[in-house]
């Protein structure tokens, strides 16, 4: 079994699906000879040719908008936005058209596209290169938003996203692109969408997170365990739609919940999770639902980025706070 980093798993999933399905094509800025600035599309153009692996002109609305046309013709475009900070120009097409094509034509046309983008901070990148605005997309009806947190989940969830008959935003936590290798069978088996993954069982409290922040969340869970606090750790994975039952079941069991995310606090996906629990799981709660998140500030330039991002200690503090409640 090959060892893949997360970025290698992303590459392998695209490669696999391109090899078995001629309708899958890849497009974006620098995805060809360069293989993408993070090498997500490494070697794909050599293998599948310039027609199927397309270096587009530098235009994000084009990338998003042309994917809609490609998808309407039965192709399955995987479009890369180079960094999430440049996705906003692609937002109009994604929201106004990709997400609505099936609905507005009563199913006559559909939009099986994947919009991929590296996201999140922590790699000392320049301005606009460290965004985590998944909440903005999670509010858009008609799409899915998926975020993997390990090589295996990147592989399985990306395959699922490509095969999904509806538009999927696939956000890749670039801080952990190469953080860890794991054995992943390159067998084309997808993981399910619309469900969370419980990464750690525990009965004292529920920690919910996604993407790179699971690193801190899992580390916090380990440390808490040393102090006798057993946290259940849930990888949200599907940001939209959210798998409510896994979350509610866990909170029913533990009675306590801390949500950890990198995005600015107000209006983050953490808010939606909290609201779901406050609406449908309130009686389980033994303590307030805390959010450990970024601040309502712009992600600062990198000298201060560590102060922006939630730390293991902050997660532990929050966990203890709800435990002591």
């Amino acid at each position, binding site marked *: 079994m090959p060892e893949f980093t997360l970025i290698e798993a992303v590459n392998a999933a695209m490669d696999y699906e391109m090899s078995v399905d001629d309708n899958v094509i890849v497009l974006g800025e620098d995805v060809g000879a360069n293989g993408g600035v993070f090498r997500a599309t490494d070697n794909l153009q050599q293998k599948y040719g310039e027609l199927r692996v397309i270096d587009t002109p530098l235009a994000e609305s*084009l990338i998003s*908008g042309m994917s809609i*046309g490609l998808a*309407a013709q*039965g192709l399955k*475009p995987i479009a890369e936005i180079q960094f999430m900070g440049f996705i906003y120009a692609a937002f109009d097409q994604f929201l106004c058209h990709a997400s609505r094509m*099936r609905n507005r034509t*009563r199913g006559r046309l559909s939009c099986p596209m994947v919009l991929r983008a590296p996201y999140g901070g922590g790699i000392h990148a320049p301005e606009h290169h460290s965004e985590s605005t998944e909440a903005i997309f999670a509010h858009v*009806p008609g799409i899915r938003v998926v975020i993997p947190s390990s090589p295996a989940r990147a592989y399985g969830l990306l395959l699922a996203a490509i095969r999904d008959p509806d538009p999927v935003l696939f956000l890749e936590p670039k801080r952990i692109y190469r953080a860890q290798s794991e054995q992943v069978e390159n067998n084309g088996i997808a993981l399910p969408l619309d469900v969370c993954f419980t990464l750690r069982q525990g009965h004292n409290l529920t920690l919910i997170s996604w993407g790179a922040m699971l690193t801190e969340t899992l580390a916090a869970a380990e440390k808490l365990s040393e102090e006798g606090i057993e946290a259940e750790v849930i990888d949200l994975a599907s940001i939209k739609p959210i798998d409510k039952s896994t979350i509610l079941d866990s909170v029913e069991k533990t009675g306590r919940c801390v949500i950890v995310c990198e995005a600015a606090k107000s209006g983050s996906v953490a808010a939606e999770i909290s609201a779901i629990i406050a609406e449908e799981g309130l009686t389980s709660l033994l303590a307030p639902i805390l959010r450990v998140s970024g601040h309502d500030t712009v992600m600062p330039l990198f000298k201060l980025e560590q102060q922006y991002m939630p730390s293991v200690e902050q997660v532990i503090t929050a966990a203890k706070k709800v435990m002591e409640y």
Partner: protein
Amino acid sequence: MTTIAEFSVQYSQFLDSKSTLKITEEQLASHGINADTLLIFYKHMLLSRTFDTKAIALQRTGRLGTYPACIGQEAISTAIGLTMRSEDVFIPYYRDVSTLLIRGTKMEELLLYWGGDERGMDYSVNREDFPLNVPIASQCLHSIGVAYAFKLRQQPRVAVVVCGDGATSEGDFYEALNAAGVWQLPIVFVVINNQWAISVPRDKQSRCETLAQKAIAGGFSGEQVDGNDCIATQIQLEKAIASARAGNGPHLIEAITYRLSDHTTADDANRYRPIQELEQAQAREPIQRLANFLLERKYASESQLKEVQTQCTQAVEESVQRYLDMPPQPTSAMFEYMYQEMPEQLQQQLSQLSSHRE
């Protein structure tokens, strides 16, 4: 200083506003245009006009929502419909009645849409054509994907995408031109220059002498045609479509026409449009222009033309009836097409709503 690139923009008009033919009948014939085809052209234009008139009336009487009529634009719209092949893909904006009807869209489908019902965009015939497009210029980028698919699959098909003069100010329009040029895609861009974008006149929209020259920024050719001239529009579109089909890449046609109606039924053009301008434009409109020509040349008689009008009225009335007879969609329809399979969350919301409405 040395000159390193030169460009020019041509204008075509073959049937002028006085209904004078500026080419020979032989030339007409060489393009397959004759009395019969012109009468067919006339029918399509009149059907569109009749439909629009009725749609406005339906709106005024509360049986249709806000409606944007195509009145004045029937020649270019008809020419597109008649020159495209059925296997081509049409990517409309929202004033494309004639093109869509020719391609198979039913009048009741259009009425459904403007009547607030998504089923209208589930065209029963021209299944690959795009739905009407409200966000200005965004459709231009869809045409890139469609035409790219043709190219990838080596299909001899063409995408025709339409937008207004106002649309040429939007970033999406230019991104599409540039990409079409890069990949030499089989696309014909048609800019319907009806002189107004709601209240903004053409000269406040762009300082360009022509909108056709925008194609130069995409690295390909653009031209102007008299968009009220059913002959020039046909001949120039034929050429552009054939050229695109043959693999010669994209082309842009700016069709000079005039929006004879208000922007939509929600608009009052008297607030911003000089009445004289409207009157002058009326004298150049396409339907009477062709009628005069048909009558002068004795290609058709007064009574024949009247008969066409009767047929159009009848067809429109029948479709209106079918529209009004449509049973409404159930509330659940709002949920059913969001995804191929309804996610649990939506199912839950639907059942909550249903239990509430019961």
